[in-house]
């Protein structure tokens, strides 16, 4: 059969600079380069290149660059080259198109249409370098009113369990299997160093991560991988995964080649077999069933751990979240459709779900309309790219955000979007020992810590500019936001005024 699939990238090699050392060939797990037998320069097979840029970064001579394959499309805005290449691929294989990381489709990014406020004259801005600036938040459910004994300075009824975060930023769930153990270790080290939490994802908790369990979320997804009483009681908190922003409504599917011996042990499935997470939890077919699962976890953990429930941002997210708050969930996590994934059907990733900004705003408002917002915590994720996005999310109503892609990028991920192949040259989204050993957990953790320290400084600067010295007062403070370039409906849903108003 004639193959109409074109390469996506072209490798440019500066022959004058190239020393012929062959490091590129030893580096690239995709097999783009092949060492020449006669000692000449390595040959290049561009069709294998995914633009992960490992060779570009590591080439000692700086002789390499990757460019887009120069083939022109027809100029049609409808039948773009990409649209035709997708068809070519499916005509060739009869397969479902697979994609990784967050959708690259040009949907509106509402973060970029929300501008922040700063104090001028009528109240002062605060200098975070010299005055206290608090970024600590607690996650967990709480009563509407606290019953206290003022004379004894004691709480009469103890609070439900709370998680203390030194900054309103956590790491999203990324399972062992979808990412390497070294990548998970880096997140664990960073979370402990930063006073925040990472999430082991749905693949169970590898025994090497147990020392970090007090800053770990254990996830319970439909496949129930690695879920036993020890797992639930070891972690600091438990997250029930109903959905993921990148692939709402479908289950997970870890291909057999990623089910290494260690993944097999942690997930309790045979080595080399596909790890399938059903689309739904088969004990949750309705909202009251979620209550049953939430309380089964609470029973199993003696009501000592907060239980989070994570949903993908979908059309009816606000009503769903309101239902979730009433199931006993302590933390509601909403994951927007631009969130990353180790693998998802491309059509699902690019077409299902809604932006987290709109879902978050709608959920926060709905919970307030029903008078229950302050009894439950709300976490937003799904492409939080920088500290300004963090400020925007909190001002829209989030208690905290989770980041996944940004943390991986800090470790070296270049967003090539080829995670599902298992050939990640950066040692992140792979289980091949030769590749995973490229990622030093300590060094990667240091980069992640640097990133979040920088974000926290920026968060403090922005809060200070607004005259706010505790993140408590930023939460839901939508007057600190103004929309720009948004229509009436968008402003209404976001609950913000337009710039100039």
């Amino acid at each position, binding site marked *: 059969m004639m193959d109409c699939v074109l390469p996506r990238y072209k490798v440019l090699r500066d022959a004058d600079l190239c020393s012929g050392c062959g490091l590129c060939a030893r580096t690239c797990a995709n097999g783009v380069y092949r060492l020449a037998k006669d000692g000449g320069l390595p040959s290049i097979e561009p069709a294998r290149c995914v633009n992960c840029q490992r060779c570009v970064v590591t080439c000692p001579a700086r002789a390499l660059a990757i460019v887009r394959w120069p083939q022109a499309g027809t100029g049609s805005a409808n039948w773009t080259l990409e649209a035709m290449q997708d068809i070519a691929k499916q005509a060739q294989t009869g397969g479902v198109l697979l994609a990784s990381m967050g959708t690259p489709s040009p949907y509106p990014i509402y973060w970029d249409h929300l501008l922040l406020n700063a*104090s001028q004259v*009528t*109240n*002062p801005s*605060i200098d975070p370098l010299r*005055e*206290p600036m*608090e970024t*600590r*938040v*607690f996650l*967990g459910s*709480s*009563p*509407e*009113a*606290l*019953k*206290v*004994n*003022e*004379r*004894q*300075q*004691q*709480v*009469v009824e*103890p*609070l439900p369990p*709370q998680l203390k975060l030194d900054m309103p930023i956590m790491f999203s769930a990324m399972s062992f299997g979808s990412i390497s153990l070294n990548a998970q270790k880096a997140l664990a080290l960073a979370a402990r160093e930063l006073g925040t939490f990472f999430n082991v994802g749905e693949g169970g908790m590898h025994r090497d991560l147990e020392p970090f369990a007090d800053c770990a979320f254990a996830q319970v997804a439909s496949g129930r991988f690695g879920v036993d009483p020890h797992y639930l009681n070891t972690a600091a908190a438990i997250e029930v995964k109903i959905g993921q922003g990148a692939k709402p409504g479908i289950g997970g599917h870890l291909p057999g080649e990623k089910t290494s011996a260690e993944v097999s042990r942690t997930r309790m499935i045979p080595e080399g077999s596909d790890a399938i997470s059903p689309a739904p939890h088969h004990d949750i077919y309705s909202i009251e069933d979620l209550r049953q699962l939430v309380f089964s976890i609470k029973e199993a953990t003696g009501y000592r751990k907060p239980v989070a429930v994570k949903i993908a941002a979908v059309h009816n997210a606000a009503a769903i979240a309101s239902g979730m708050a009433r199931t006993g969930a302590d933390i509601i996590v909403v994951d927007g459709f631009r969130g990353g994934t180790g693998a998802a059907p491309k059509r699902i990733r690019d077409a299902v779900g809604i932006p987290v900004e709109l879902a978050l705003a709608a959920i926060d*408002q709905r919970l*307030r*309309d*029903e*008078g*229950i*917002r*302050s009894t439950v915590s709300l976490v937003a994720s799904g492409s939080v790219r920088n500290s300004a996005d963090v400020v925007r999310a909190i001002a829209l109503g989030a208690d905290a955000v989770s980041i996944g892609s940004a943390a991986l990028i800090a470790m070296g991920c270049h967003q090539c979007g080829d995670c599902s192949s298992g050939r990640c040259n950066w040692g992140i989204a792979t289980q091949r020992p030769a590749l995973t050993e490229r990622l030093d957990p300590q060094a990667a953790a240091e980069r992640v810590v640097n990133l979040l320290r920088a974000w926290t400084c920026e968060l403090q600067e922005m809060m200070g500019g*607004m*005259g*706010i*010295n*505790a993140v*408590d*007062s*930023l*939460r*839901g*403070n*939508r*007057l*600190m936001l103004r929309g720009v370039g948004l229509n009436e409906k968008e402003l*209404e849903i976001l*609950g*913000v*005024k337009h710039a100039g108003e």
Partner: protein
Amino acid sequence: MAGRHLHREGTIRIPSGCAIAAMMDRTGGRHDGTDILRSIALMRDRSNGLGGGFAAYGIYPDYAELYAFHVMYESREARAATEAYLEHYYLSEKQERVPTEDHPAIKNPPDVWRYFMAPHPMRLPASGLTEAEYTMRHVFHINSSIDGAFVASSGKDMGVFKGVGYPEDIGEFYRIGDYGAWAWTAHGRFPTNTPGWWGGAHPFTLLNWSIVHNGEISSYDANRRYVEQFGYDCELQTDTEVITYLFDLLARRHGLSQEMAAHIMTAPSWQAIDAMAPDQAAFETALRTVYSSALVNGPFSIILGSEEGLLALNDRLKLRALMAAEKGPMVYLASEQAAIEVVCPDAEHMRSIEGGVPFVVQLDEVARRRQREAAESCAVREQPRDHEVGVRPCRRKEA
């Protein structure tokens, strides 16, 4: 009316600065309004003539058990509609025009009336609400739904006298020298961009609460959206309004002391909490966690009046000035020291109010009662939310 095209509070959020003052006799002895007027007049430079007012406690001893509504009317129709409404829900013992005196600096005053009323004996129990919630709802209804009418105060044995002008002129207009009160608070306003309107002047009140406030808080929308969950309508979009509702929520509804409510609003820093003994740290952590959205951020100094007395509070970073002094049973508070000394030259214990530390002045009888009472907070039954009692879906208000 000047500039009908200009915005009022309620249609837009207007930042403003201010002068505040208060005085109180802890024994409950009543004093006329002469001194408070002189005190606030000294701080004329902190106001700009666009709002002034006074709150007075203990002025209606003959009607102490009845709600005293001070209502401002812009038109005869507004008064007719309001009185018809009040007649439906309350039994009125007495109603009369609030005595005023023409003043050259006061232009186009509204028609101000007062009503001494008890909740309707059938409709109150039928509502399923406490007396306070019942009254709060009707105040919200009049202020949001009857055009040209504004309930300036709605407490018992207290009243508010406020309007557009410098506070000393407003005080003379209302003849506050004719009233005897055991506590007075005063406010001179410096709004940034409004012509001012009578209802928007301060003190702001709800039930027995009155607040005078200086500064602009930066946590406004976080606080507003927090209290709105519990049925408070932030119609005026002012800091004073939202702070009043926070006190009402924490003290009246959740049963905390006013001091504890103030403590929650200016919670200790995490740095301070981390340095506390574990039990104390756990207590403070629980307070901050549950009442995270009640933290008031940004510069403010406030004086809260209530049937218990006065409470003065400065923000955590002490960004606004507020002084306190005493003389015998009298306690004086003012934005500036001289405003105290002008009425009490030999005032003692002159000091500034510390940031984040509530300064509480209680009537002696209240202080004695408090010591006998149980120390456990006891929340009153919460007001049912609209979605719990409505028979049709509620429509969300525009932000």
